[in-house]
Protein backbone atom coordinates (compact mmCIF):
# COMPACT_ATOMS: atom_id res chain seq x y z
CA UNK A 1 0.00 0.00 0.00
CA UNK A 2 1.21 3.42 -0.80
CA UNK A 3 -0.65 6.38 0.55
CA UNK A 4 -0.32 8.01 -2.83
CA UNK A 5 -1.59 11.55 -3.08
CA UNK A 6 -4.85 10.58 -4.67
CA UNK A 7 -7.09 13.57 -5.34
CA UNK A 8 -10.68 13.17 -4.25
CA UNK A 9 -12.64 12.77 -7.48
CA UNK A 10 -10.61 9.81 -8.75
CA UNK A 11 -13.51 7.42 -8.26
CA UNK A 12 -15.88 9.22 -10.58
CA UNK A 13 -15.31 7.77 -14.08
CA UNK A 14 -16.28 4.20 -13.25
CA UNK A 15 -19.55 5.30 -11.70
CA UNK A 16 -20.88 7.55 -14.44
CA UNK A 17 -21.52 5.03 -17.23
CA UNK A 18 -23.20 2.65 -14.82
CA UNK A 19 -25.57 5.34 -13.72
CA UNK A 20 -26.77 6.16 -17.23
CA UNK A 21 -27.66 2.52 -17.86
CA UNK A 22 -29.59 2.21 -14.64
CA UNK A 23 -33.34 1.50 -14.91
CA UNK A 24 -35.73 4.12 -13.58
CA UNK A 25 -36.73 2.97 -10.08
CA UNK A 26 -33.22 1.92 -9.13
CA UNK A 27 -31.86 5.21 -10.27
CA UNK A 28 -34.47 6.98 -8.21
CA UNK A 29 -33.52 4.95 -5.16
CA UNK A 30 -29.85 5.72 -5.64
CA UNK A 31 -30.63 9.40 -6.04
CA UNK A 32 -32.76 9.55 -2.92
CA UNK A 33 -30.08 7.70 -0.97
CA UNK A 34 -27.51 10.23 -2.17
CA UNK A 35 -29.76 13.08 -1.12
CA UNK A 36 -30.51 11.37 2.20
CA UNK A 37 -26.86 10.95 3.14
CA UNK A 38 -26.19 14.47 1.96
CA UNK A 39 -28.83 15.76 4.36
CA UNK A 40 -27.33 13.71 7.20
CA UNK A 41 -23.89 15.13 6.43
CA UNK A 42 -25.25 18.67 6.44
CA UNK A 43 -27.00 18.15 9.77
CA UNK A 44 -23.82 16.75 11.31
CA UNK A 45 -21.73 19.57 9.90
CA UNK A 46 -24.05 22.27 11.19
CA UNK A 47 -24.33 20.62 14.61
CA UNK A 48 -20.55 20.52 14.87
CA UNK A 49 -20.23 24.10 13.80
CA UNK A 50 -22.99 25.35 16.10
CA UNK A 51 -20.79 26.28 19.10
CA UNK A 52 -18.54 28.33 16.82
CA UNK A 53 -21.54 30.00 15.22
CA UNK A 54 -23.02 30.73 18.62
CA UNK A 55 -19.73 32.26 19.74
CA UNK A 56 -19.73 34.62 16.75
CA UNK A 57 -23.43 35.51 17.19
CA UNK A 58 -22.96 36.20 20.89
CA UNK A 59 -19.97 38.41 20.10
CA UNK A 60 -22.28 40.80 18.22
CA UNK A 61 -24.81 41.04 21.06
CA UNK A 62 -25.02 43.87 23.52
CA UNK A 63 -24.02 42.50 26.90
CA UNK A 64 -27.59 42.71 28.19
CA UNK A 65 -28.87 40.45 25.40
CA UNK A 66 -26.18 37.78 25.88
CA UNK A 67 -27.34 36.37 29.19
CA UNK A 68 -31.07 35.93 28.75
CA UNK A 69 -33.51 33.07 29.00
CA UNK A 70 -34.57 31.97 26.49
CA UNK A 71 -31.45 32.83 24.49
CA UNK A 72 -32.07 35.70 22.07
CA UNK A 73 -31.76 35.02 18.36
CA UNK A 74 -32.91 38.43 17.22
CA UNK A 75 -31.22 41.53 18.54
CA UNK A 76 -29.68 44.67 17.15
CA UNK A 77 -26.04 43.73 16.52
CA UNK A 78 -23.35 45.94 17.94
CA UNK A 79 -19.62 46.20 17.48
CA UNK A 80 -19.14 47.57 20.98
CA UNK A 81 -17.52 44.44 22.38
CA UNK A 82 -15.20 44.10 19.38
CA UNK A 83 -14.09 47.70 19.86
CA UNK A 84 -13.33 46.94 23.47
CA UNK A 85 -11.35 43.85 22.49
CA UNK A 86 -9.33 45.66 19.85
CA UNK A 87 -8.47 48.40 22.30
CA UNK A 88 -6.76 45.92 24.58
CA UNK A 89 -5.36 43.09 22.52
CA UNK A 90 -2.37 44.92 20.97
CA UNK A 91 0.52 43.56 23.05
CA UNK A 92 -0.99 40.08 23.25
CA UNK A 93 -1.47 39.66 19.51
CA UNK A 94 2.04 40.97 18.91
CA UNK A 95 3.51 38.41 21.31
CA UNK A 96 1.41 35.63 19.76
CA UNK A 97 2.49 36.57 16.26
CA UNK A 98 6.19 36.75 17.18
CA UNK A 99 6.12 33.45 19.07
CA UNK A 100 4.18 31.69 16.32
CA UNK A 101 6.13 32.97 13.34
CA UNK A 102 9.48 32.82 15.12
CA UNK A 103 9.03 29.23 16.24
CA UNK A 104 7.65 28.08 12.90
CA UNK A 105 10.60 29.56 11.00
CA UNK A 106 13.02 27.97 13.45
CA UNK A 107 11.23 24.63 13.11
CA UNK A 108 11.67 24.73 9.34
CA UNK A 109 15.30 25.82 9.55
CA UNK A 110 16.10 22.90 11.87
CA UNK A 111 13.60 20.45 10.46
CA UNK A 112 14.38 20.54 6.74
CA UNK A 113 18.06 19.49 7.08
CA UNK A 114 17.13 16.91 9.70
CA UNK A 115 14.46 15.41 7.47
CA UNK A 116 16.99 15.39 4.63
CA UNK A 117 19.36 13.35 6.77
CA UNK A 118 16.57 10.92 7.56
CA UNK A 119 15.17 10.55 4.05
CA UNK A 120 17.30 11.50 1.08
CA UNK A 121 20.79 10.48 2.14
CA UNK A 122 19.74 8.68 5.29
CA UNK A 123 22.09 8.12 8.18
CA UNK A 124 22.60 4.49 9.03
CA UNK A 125 20.28 4.53 12.03
CA UNK A 126 17.64 6.83 10.60
CA UNK A 127 14.96 4.77 12.28
CA UNK A 128 16.40 5.38 15.74
CA UNK A 129 16.75 9.05 14.94
CA UNK A 130 13.15 9.35 13.87
CA UNK A 131 11.92 7.45 16.91
CA UNK A 132 13.95 9.67 19.19
CA UNK A 133 12.21 12.76 17.87
CA UNK A 134 8.80 11.15 18.11
CA UNK A 135 9.51 9.88 21.61
CA UNK A 136 10.19 13.41 22.88
CA UNK A 137 6.62 14.21 21.90
CA UNK A 138 5.43 11.53 24.27
CA UNK A 139 7.12 12.95 27.34
CA UNK A 140 4.51 15.15 28.96
CA UNK A 141 5.95 18.65 29.24
CA UNK A 142 3.61 19.31 32.15
CA UNK A 143 5.73 16.94 34.22
CA UNK A 144 8.66 19.34 34.04
CA UNK A 145 6.82 22.60 34.49
CA UNK A 146 8.19 23.42 37.95
CA UNK A 147 11.83 22.88 37.02
CA UNK A 148 11.21 24.61 33.69
CA UNK A 149 10.09 27.64 35.65
CA UNK A 150 13.23 27.52 37.79
CA UNK A 151 15.48 27.12 34.72
CA UNK A 152 13.76 30.03 32.99
CA UNK A 153 14.10 32.13 36.12
CA UNK A 154 17.83 31.43 36.43
CA UNK A 155 18.43 31.97 32.71
CA UNK A 156 16.58 35.30 32.89
CA UNK A 157 14.16 34.04 30.28
CA UNK A 158 11.04 34.16 32.40
CA UNK A 159 8.29 36.24 30.80
CA UNK A 160 10.33 36.64 27.62
CA UNK A 161 9.14 35.99 24.11
CA UNK A 162 12.39 34.11 23.39
CA UNK A 163 11.44 31.47 25.89
CA UNK A 164 8.17 30.82 24.08
CA UNK A 165 9.94 30.68 20.71
CA UNK A 166 12.45 28.16 22.08
CA UNK A 167 9.80 25.96 23.68
CA UNK A 168 7.30 26.10 20.83
CA UNK A 169 10.07 25.11 18.44
CA UNK A 170 10.88 22.05 20.53
CA UNK A 171 7.17 21.30 20.81
CA UNK A 172 6.57 21.30 17.04
CA UNK A 173 9.90 20.05 15.73
CA UNK A 174 9.27 16.28 16.04
CA UNK A 175 6.01 16.32 14.11
CA UNK A 176 7.54 18.65 11.53
CA UNK A 177 10.58 16.43 10.94
CA UNK A 178 8.33 13.43 10.58
CA UNK A 179 6.11 15.17 8.05
CA UNK A 180 8.89 16.78 6.02
CA UNK A 181 10.70 13.47 5.87
CA UNK A 182 7.68 11.78 4.35
CA UNK A 183 7.34 14.54 1.78
CA UNK A 184 11.00 14.11 0.86
CA UNK A 185 10.49 10.39 0.34
CA UNK A 186 8.16 11.34 -2.48
CA UNK A 187 10.99 12.89 -4.47
CA UNK A 188 11.52 10.41 -7.33
CA UNK A 189 14.93 8.78 -7.11
CA UNK A 190 15.36 9.19 -10.89
CA UNK A 191 15.31 12.93 -10.41
CA UNK A 192 18.07 12.74 -7.80
CA UNK A 193 20.01 10.37 -10.02
CA UNK A 194 19.70 12.70 -13.00
CA UNK A 195 20.82 15.67 -10.95
CA UNK A 196 23.87 13.75 -9.75
CA UNK A 197 24.81 12.72 -13.26
CA UNK A 198 24.53 16.39 -14.13
CA UNK A 199 27.22 16.99 -11.56
CA UNK A 200 24.96 18.73 -9.07
CA UNK A 201 26.34 18.95 -5.54
CA UNK A 202 24.34 18.60 -2.35
CA UNK A 203 23.40 22.26 -2.39
CA UNK A 204 22.01 22.22 -5.92
CA UNK A 205 20.33 18.92 -5.24
CA UNK A 206 18.43 20.53 -2.36
CA UNK A 207 17.57 23.82 -4.01
CA UNK A 208 16.79 22.56 -7.52
CA UNK A 209 15.47 19.04 -7.09
CA UNK A 210 14.10 18.56 -3.60
CA UNK A 211 12.71 21.97 -2.70
CA UNK A 212 10.35 22.31 -5.66
CA UNK A 213 8.84 18.90 -4.85
CA UNK A 214 8.50 19.33 -1.11
CA UNK A 215 7.51 22.99 -0.90
CA UNK A 216 3.75 22.29 -0.79
CA UNK A 217 4.51 19.84 2.00
CA UNK A 218 6.48 22.50 3.83
CA UNK A 219 3.46 24.76 3.64
CA UNK A 220 1.24 22.19 5.33
CA UNK A 221 3.93 21.47 7.91
CA UNK A 222 4.26 25.17 8.69
CA UNK A 223 0.50 25.44 8.91
CA UNK A 224 0.25 22.75 11.55
CA UNK A 225 3.08 24.33 13.54
CA UNK A 226 1.28 27.68 13.35
CA UNK A 227 -1.96 26.18 14.66
CA UNK A 228 -0.30 24.54 17.65
CA UNK A 229 1.88 27.52 18.53
CA UNK A 230 -0.88 30.11 18.15
CA UNK A 231 -3.26 28.11 20.33
CA UNK A 232 -0.81 27.10 23.07
CA UNK A 233 -1.83 28.09 26.60
CA UNK A 234 -0.12 25.92 29.22
CA UNK A 235 3.45 27.12 28.78
CA UNK A 236 2.43 30.73 28.24
CA UNK A 237 0.29 30.69 31.37
CA UNK A 238 3.06 29.24 33.51
CA UNK A 239 6.07 31.08 32.15
CA UNK A 240 4.87 34.51 31.09
CA UNK A 241 3.19 37.39 32.88
CA UNK A 242 3.01 40.56 30.81
CA UNK A 243 6.06 40.97 28.60
CA UNK A 244 5.29 37.87 26.58
CA UNK A 245 1.66 37.11 27.41
CA UNK A 246 -0.10 35.66 24.36
CA UNK A 247 -3.65 35.74 23.04
CA UNK A 248 -4.94 32.74 25.02
CA UNK A 249 -3.95 34.66 28.16
CA UNK A 250 -5.74 37.72 26.84
CA UNK A 251 -8.82 35.52 26.62
CA UNK A 252 -8.51 34.50 30.24
CA UNK A 253 -8.11 38.12 31.27
CA UNK A 254 -11.40 38.90 29.50
CA UNK A 255 -13.28 36.91 32.12
CA UNK A 256 -13.81 39.30 35.02
CA UNK A 257 -14.58 38.32 38.59
CA UNK A 258 -18.06 39.84 38.45
CA UNK A 259 -20.61 41.45 36.17
CA UNK A 260 -21.84 40.52 32.72
CA UNK A 261 -19.08 39.40 30.41
CA UNK A 262 -20.42 36.75 28.03
CA UNK A 263 -20.62 39.01 24.97
CA UNK A 264 -17.20 40.44 25.67
CA UNK A 265 -15.74 36.98 26.17
CA UNK A 266 -17.31 35.78 22.91
CA UNK A 267 -15.90 38.73 21.01
CA UNK A 268 -12.43 38.09 22.44
CA UNK A 269 -12.69 34.37 21.66
CA UNK A 270 -13.79 35.12 18.11
CA UNK A 271 -10.99 37.59 17.50
CA UNK A 272 -8.37 35.23 18.96
CA UNK A 273 -9.55 32.25 16.91
CA UNK A 274 -10.32 33.87 13.58
CA UNK A 275 -6.76 34.13 12.19
CA UNK A 276 -6.07 30.40 12.52
CA UNK A 277 -9.58 29.43 11.44
CA UNK A 278 -9.28 31.51 8.27
CA UNK A 279 -5.83 30.20 7.44
CA UNK A 280 -7.05 26.67 8.10
CA UNK A 281 -10.08 27.10 5.87
CA UNK A 282 -8.05 28.51 3.01
CA UNK A 283 -5.38 25.84 3.28
CA UNK A 284 -7.73 22.91 3.94
CA UNK A 285 -6.34 20.65 1.26
CA UNK A 286 -2.84 21.33 2.38
CA UNK A 287 -3.87 20.59 5.95
CA UNK A 288 -5.43 17.26 5.03
CA UNK A 289 -2.33 16.35 3.10
CA UNK A 290 -0.03 17.34 5.91
CA UNK A 291 -1.93 15.42 8.55
CA UNK A 292 -2.39 12.25 6.61
CA UNK A 293 -0.31 11.65 3.51
CA UNK A 294 2.62 13.17 5.28
CA UNK A 295 1.91 11.53 8.58
CA UNK A 296 1.30 8.02 7.37
CA UNK A 297 4.66 7.62 5.66
Amino acid at each position, binding site marked *: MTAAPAPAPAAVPSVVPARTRMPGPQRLRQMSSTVGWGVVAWVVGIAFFLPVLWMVITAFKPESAAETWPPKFTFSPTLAEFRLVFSGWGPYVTHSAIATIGSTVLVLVLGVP*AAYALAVHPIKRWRDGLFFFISTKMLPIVAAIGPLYVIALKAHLLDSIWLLIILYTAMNLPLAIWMIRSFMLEVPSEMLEAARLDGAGRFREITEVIMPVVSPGLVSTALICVIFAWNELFLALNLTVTNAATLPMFLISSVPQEGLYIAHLSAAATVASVPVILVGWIAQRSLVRGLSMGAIK
Partner: protein
Amino acid sequence: MAVVETGAAPPSVAEVRPRGGGRRDAWQRRLPLLPALIYTIVVTQIPFLVTLWYSFQNYFFDVPGGAHWTGLSNYKQVFTNAAFRGALWRSVIMTVSAVIVAMILGVLFALLLDRKFIGRSVVRTLIITPFLIMPAAAALVWAGPMLDPNFGLLNYLLQPFGVHHVAWLSTHALGSVIVVMIWQWTPFMTLIVLAGLQGQPTDALEAAKVDGAGALATFRELTLPHLRPYIELGILLGSIYLVNVFDAVRLMTNGGPGTATTNLPFYLYEQVNNAFDVGGAAAAGVVTVILTIIVATFALRMFARVFQFEEAA
Protein backbone atom coordinates in the same frame (compact mmCIF):
# COMPACT_ATOMS: atom_id res chain seq x y z
CA MET B 1 13.64 5.87 25.92
CA ALA B 2 12.84 2.62 24.26
CA VAL B 3 13.48 2.51 20.59
CA VAL B 4 12.21 -0.23 18.37
CA GLU B 5 14.70 -1.63 15.92
CA THR B 6 13.03 -3.54 13.17
CA GLY B 7 16.16 -4.09 11.16
CA ALA B 8 14.73 -3.34 7.75
CA ALA B 9 16.93 -1.65 5.20
CA PRO B 10 16.59 2.11 5.05
CA PRO B 11 14.65 3.37 2.05
CA SER B 12 17.59 5.26 0.70
CA VAL B 13 16.43 7.24 -2.25
CA ALA B 14 19.89 7.62 -3.66
CA GLU B 15 22.51 5.32 -2.24
CA VAL B 16 25.89 6.99 -2.53
CA ARG B 17 28.93 5.37 -1.09
CA PRO B 18 32.05 6.83 -2.56
CA ARG B 19 34.91 4.33 -2.29
CA GLY B 20 37.26 4.88 0.65
CA GLY B 21 35.24 7.79 2.04
CA GLY B 22 32.96 5.69 4.27
CA ARG B 23 33.66 7.60 7.43
CA ARG B 24 33.58 11.01 5.89
CA ASP B 25 30.40 10.06 4.12
CA ALA B 26 28.79 8.94 7.35
CA TRP B 27 29.54 12.31 8.94
CA GLN B 28 28.32 14.13 5.89
CA ARG B 29 25.07 12.29 6.27
CA ARG B 30 24.85 13.02 9.98
CA LEU B 31 25.74 16.68 9.75
CA PRO B 32 22.34 18.06 8.66
CA LEU B 33 20.68 16.12 11.44
CA LEU B 34 22.88 17.46 14.22
CA PRO B 35 21.39 20.94 14.77
CA ALA B 36 17.88 19.57 15.24
CA LEU B 37 19.15 16.66 17.31
CA ILE B 38 21.21 18.82 19.64
CA TYR B 39 18.43 21.37 19.93
CA THR B 40 15.89 18.72 20.83
CA ILE B 41 18.16 17.04 23.35
CA VAL B 42 18.99 20.33 25.07
CA VAL B 43 15.50 21.75 25.16
CA THR B 44 13.48 18.63 25.88
CA GLN B 45 15.83 16.42 27.90
CA ILE B 46 17.52 18.90 30.24
CA PRO B 47 14.26 19.98 31.89
CA PHE B 48 13.57 16.33 32.63
CA LEU B 49 17.02 15.81 34.12
CA VAL B 50 16.44 18.86 36.31
CA THR B 51 13.04 17.44 37.21
CA LEU B 52 14.74 14.26 38.32
CA TRP B 53 17.14 16.32 40.45
CA TYR B 54 14.40 18.35 42.13
CA SER B 55 12.35 15.26 42.79
CA PHE B 56 14.86 14.42 45.52
CA GLN B 57 14.84 17.94 46.93
CA ASN B 58 12.65 19.74 49.37
CA TYR B 59 11.98 22.94 47.47
CA PHE B 60 9.08 25.32 47.94
CA PHE B 61 8.92 28.62 46.06
CA ASP B 62 7.49 30.39 49.05
CA VAL B 63 9.98 29.07 51.59
CA PRO B 64 13.24 31.02 51.67
CA GLY B 65 16.52 29.16 51.74
CA GLY B 66 16.19 27.24 48.50
CA ALA B 67 16.34 23.52 47.91
CA HIS B 68 17.80 20.84 50.11
CA TRP B 69 18.17 17.11 49.76
CA THR B 70 15.37 14.95 51.14
CA GLY B 71 15.97 11.56 49.61
CA LEU B 72 12.87 9.65 48.65
CA SER B 73 10.35 11.49 50.76
CA ASN B 74 8.76 13.24 47.79
CA TYR B 75 8.22 9.88 46.14
CA LYS B 76 6.80 8.42 49.32
CA GLN B 77 4.30 11.25 49.28
CA VAL B 78 3.39 10.69 45.65
CA PHE B 79 2.70 7.01 46.12
CA THR B 80 0.66 7.48 49.27
CA ASN B 81 -1.21 10.45 47.87
CA ALA B 82 -4.79 9.68 46.85
CA ALA B 83 -5.00 12.97 44.93
CA PHE B 84 -2.21 11.89 42.59
CA ARG B 85 -3.77 8.48 42.00
CA GLY B 86 -7.13 10.13 41.36
CA ALA B 87 -5.62 12.54 38.86
CA LEU B 88 -3.82 9.69 37.13
CA TRP B 89 -7.01 7.68 36.88
CA ARG B 90 -9.00 10.63 35.54
CA SER B 91 -6.29 11.29 32.96
CA VAL B 92 -6.65 7.74 31.73
CA ILE B 93 -10.46 7.94 31.59
CA MET B 94 -10.46 11.28 29.81
CA THR B 95 -7.85 10.32 27.25
CA VAL B 96 -9.17 6.86 26.45
CA SER B 97 -12.83 7.81 26.20
CA ALA B 98 -12.15 10.99 24.22
CA VAL B 99 -9.83 9.24 21.76
CA ILE B 100 -12.16 6.29 21.20
CA VAL B 101 -15.32 8.33 20.73
CA ALA B 102 -13.54 10.90 18.56
CA MET B 103 -12.18 8.10 16.38
CA ILE B 104 -15.57 6.40 15.98
CA LEU B 105 -17.17 9.71 15.06
CA GLY B 106 -14.22 10.48 12.83
CA VAL B 107 -14.69 7.26 10.84
CA LEU B 108 -18.44 7.91 10.49
CA PHE B 109 -17.92 11.52 9.41
CA ALA B 110 -15.21 10.52 6.98
CA LEU B 111 -17.55 7.94 5.41
CA LEU B 112 -20.18 10.68 5.06
CA LEU B 113 -17.71 13.12 3.54
CA ASP B 114 -16.36 10.50 1.15
CA ARG B 115 -19.74 10.43 -0.60
CA LYS B 116 -20.70 12.96 -3.21
CA PHE B 117 -23.37 15.43 -2.22
CA ILE B 118 -24.18 19.06 -2.75
CA GLY B 119 -21.97 21.35 -0.72
CA ARG B 120 -19.54 18.67 0.37
CA SER B 121 -16.61 21.02 0.70
CA VAL B 122 -18.70 23.42 2.79
CA VAL B 123 -19.66 20.62 5.18
CA ARG B 124 -16.03 19.54 5.42
CA THR B 125 -15.11 23.11 6.25
CA LEU B 126 -17.75 23.22 8.99
CA ILE B 127 -16.57 19.95 10.46
CA ILE B 128 -12.86 20.84 10.65
CA THR B 129 -13.47 24.18 12.35
CA PRO B 130 -13.50 22.86 15.95
CA PHE B 131 -9.94 21.64 15.41
CA LEU B 132 -8.82 25.10 14.32
CA ILE B 133 -10.46 27.12 17.08
CA MET B 134 -8.18 28.07 19.96
CA PRO B 135 -8.69 25.49 22.76
CA ALA B 136 -8.83 28.25 25.36
CA ALA B 137 -11.56 29.98 23.35
CA ALA B 138 -13.42 26.69 22.90
CA ALA B 139 -13.28 25.97 26.62
CA LEU B 140 -14.54 29.43 27.60
CA VAL B 141 -17.30 29.44 24.97
CA TRP B 142 -18.48 26.00 26.04
CA ALA B 143 -18.36 26.93 29.72
CA GLY B 144 -20.34 30.15 29.20
CA PRO B 145 -22.60 30.62 26.18
CA MET B 146 -23.08 26.90 25.56
CA LEU B 147 -23.36 25.17 28.95
CA ASP B 148 -24.41 27.85 31.41
CA PRO B 149 -27.41 26.63 33.42
CA ASN B 150 -29.27 29.94 33.15
CA PHE B 151 -28.73 31.11 29.61
CA GLY B 152 -26.77 28.35 27.84
CA LEU B 153 -27.75 27.31 24.34
CA LEU B 154 -27.56 23.58 25.07
CA ASN B 155 -30.21 23.68 27.77
CA TYR B 156 -32.40 25.64 25.38
CA LEU B 157 -31.94 23.11 22.59
CA LEU B 158 -32.57 20.19 24.95
CA GLN B 159 -35.72 21.72 26.43
CA PRO B 160 -38.04 19.66 24.18
CA PHE B 161 -36.41 16.55 25.64
CA GLY B 162 -37.30 17.47 29.20
CA VAL B 163 -33.98 19.05 30.17
CA HIS B 164 -34.41 22.09 32.38
CA HIS B 165 -31.56 24.35 33.43
CA VAL B 166 -29.04 21.63 34.05
CA ALA B 167 -25.81 22.97 35.56
CA TRP B 168 -23.65 20.76 33.38
CA LEU B 169 -20.33 21.85 34.84
CA SER B 170 -21.44 21.08 38.38
CA THR B 171 -23.41 17.89 37.84
CA HIS B 172 -21.67 16.36 34.82
CA ALA B 173 -18.28 18.04 34.99
CA LEU B 174 -16.09 15.20 33.77
CA GLY B 175 -18.51 14.32 30.98
CA SER B 176 -18.71 17.95 29.87
CA VAL B 177 -14.93 18.30 29.67
CA ILE B 178 -14.70 15.03 27.73
CA VAL B 179 -17.40 16.21 25.32
CA VAL B 180 -15.38 19.33 24.55
CA MET B 181 -12.24 17.24 24.05
CA ILE B 182 -14.16 14.99 21.64
CA TRP B 183 -15.61 18.00 19.85
CA GLN B 184 -12.14 19.44 19.27
CA TRP B 185 -10.46 16.21 18.15
CA THR B 186 -13.12 14.54 16.02
CA PRO B 187 -12.22 16.79 13.06
CA PHE B 188 -8.61 15.67 13.31
CA MET B 189 -9.63 12.02 13.21
CA THR B 190 -12.04 12.75 10.36
CA LEU B 191 -9.32 14.33 8.27
CA ILE B 192 -6.89 11.45 8.75
CA VAL B 193 -9.50 8.77 8.02
CA LEU B 194 -10.83 10.75 5.06
CA ALA B 195 -7.39 10.85 3.52
CA GLY B 196 -7.20 7.09 4.02
CA LEU B 197 -10.55 6.59 2.31
CA GLN B 198 -9.53 8.73 -0.62
CA GLY B 199 -6.32 6.79 -1.03
CA GLN B 200 -8.23 3.52 -1.28
CA PRO B 201 -7.87 1.78 -4.63
CA THR B 202 -11.27 1.89 -6.33
CA ASP B 203 -10.90 -1.26 -8.45
CA ALA B 204 -11.18 -3.57 -5.43
CA LEU B 205 -14.34 -1.77 -4.33
CA GLU B 206 -15.77 -2.09 -7.83
CA ALA B 207 -14.96 -5.79 -7.91
CA ALA B 208 -16.70 -6.27 -4.57
CA LYS B 209 -19.74 -4.49 -5.94
CA VAL B 210 -19.80 -6.70 -9.03
CA ASP B 211 -19.52 -9.75 -6.77
CA GLY B 212 -22.64 -8.53 -5.04
CA ALA B 213 -21.01 -7.82 -1.67
CA GLY B 214 -23.13 -5.72 0.66
CA ALA B 215 -22.00 -2.30 1.80
CA LEU B 216 -21.34 -3.49 5.34
CA ALA B 217 -19.34 -6.52 4.23
CA THR B 218 -17.31 -4.39 1.83
CA PHE B 219 -16.58 -1.97 4.64
CA ARG B 220 -15.54 -4.70 7.05
CA GLU B 221 -13.51 -6.78 4.63
CA LEU B 222 -11.92 -4.11 2.43
CA THR B 223 -12.20 -0.59 3.76
CA LEU B 224 -11.46 -1.21 7.43
CA PRO B 225 -8.22 -3.15 6.84
CA HIS B 226 -7.12 -0.44 4.44
CA LEU B 227 -7.89 2.23 7.01
CA ARG B 228 -6.11 0.48 9.84
CA PRO B 229 -2.78 2.34 9.70
CA TYR B 230 -4.64 5.63 9.43
CA ILE B 231 -6.80 4.78 12.43
CA GLU B 232 -3.76 3.70 14.45
CA LEU B 233 -2.01 6.91 13.55
CA GLY B 234 -5.01 9.01 14.55
CA ILE B 235 -5.29 7.21 17.88
CA LEU B 236 -1.58 7.69 18.55
CA LEU B 237 -1.40 11.38 17.71
CA GLY B 238 -4.72 12.03 19.43
CA SER B 239 -3.53 10.34 22.62
CA ILE B 240 -0.27 12.26 22.63
CA TYR B 241 -2.13 15.55 22.60
CA LEU B 242 -5.18 14.61 24.64
CA VAL B 243 -3.26 13.17 27.59
CA ASN B 244 -1.86 16.69 28.06
CA VAL B 245 -5.23 18.43 27.95
CA PHE B 246 -5.08 21.42 30.24
CA ASP B 247 -6.99 24.34 28.75
CA ALA B 248 -10.42 22.72 28.97
CA VAL B 249 -9.88 21.63 32.57
CA ARG B 250 -8.43 24.92 33.76
CA LEU B 251 -10.98 27.13 32.02
CA MET B 252 -14.17 25.08 32.22
CA THR B 253 -14.08 23.60 35.71
CA ASN B 254 -10.75 24.58 37.26
CA GLY B 255 -10.32 20.92 38.13
CA GLY B 256 -13.57 20.77 40.06
CA PRO B 257 -16.04 20.51 41.48
CA GLY B 258 -13.77 19.22 44.22
CA THR B 259 -11.28 17.24 42.18
CA ALA B 260 -13.84 15.74 39.78
CA THR B 261 -11.99 16.90 36.66
CA THR B 262 -8.43 17.21 37.98
CA ASN B 263 -6.26 15.32 35.53
CA LEU B 264 -2.49 14.94 35.77
CA PRO B 265 -1.56 18.13 33.94
CA PHE B 266 -3.89 20.18 36.10
CA TYR B 267 -2.70 18.43 39.27
CA LEU B 268 0.93 19.20 38.47
CA TYR B 269 0.00 22.78 37.60
CA GLU B 270 -1.67 23.20 40.97
CA GLN B 271 1.27 21.67 42.83
CA VAL B 272 3.55 24.32 41.37
CA ASN B 273 1.22 27.31 41.21
CA ASN B 274 -0.83 26.95 44.37
CA ALA B 275 1.21 24.73 46.66
CA PHE B 276 4.57 26.08 45.37
CA ASP B 277 5.81 22.54 45.85
CA VAL B 278 8.49 22.15 43.18
CA GLY B 279 9.94 19.01 44.76
CA GLY B 280 6.61 17.24 45.11
CA ALA B 281 5.52 18.22 41.62
CA ALA B 282 8.87 17.03 40.26
CA ALA B 283 8.47 13.62 41.89
CA ALA B 284 4.92 13.35 40.56
CA GLY B 285 6.31 14.44 37.19
CA VAL B 286 8.98 11.73 37.23
CA VAL B 287 6.38 9.08 38.03
CA THR B 288 4.22 10.45 35.24
CA VAL B 289 7.13 10.27 32.82
CA ILE B 290 7.92 6.68 33.80
CA LEU B 291 4.30 5.67 33.28
CA THR B 292 4.30 7.50 29.97
CA ILE B 293 7.43 5.69 28.86
CA ILE B 294 5.76 2.35 29.58
CA VAL B 295 2.72 3.34 27.52
CA ALA B 296 4.86 4.97 24.85
CA THR B 297 6.92 1.82 24.38
CA PHE B 298 3.78 0.10 23.22
CA ALA B 299 2.85 3.13 21.17
CA LEU B 300 6.24 3.12 19.46
CA ARG B 301 5.75 -0.54 18.57
CA MET B 302 2.62 0.60 16.83
CA PHE B 303 4.61 3.26 15.01
CA ALA B 304 7.02 0.59 13.91
CA ARG B 305 4.15 -1.40 12.47
CA VAL B 306 2.95 1.63 10.54
CA PHE B 307 6.43 1.96 9.13
CA GLN B 308 6.58 -1.66 8.08
CA PHE B 309 3.29 -1.17 6.39
CA GLU B 310 4.78 1.64 4.41
CA GLU B 311 7.77 -0.38 3.34
CA ALA B 312 5.72 -3.38 2.30
CA ALA B 313 4.20 -1.20 -0.40
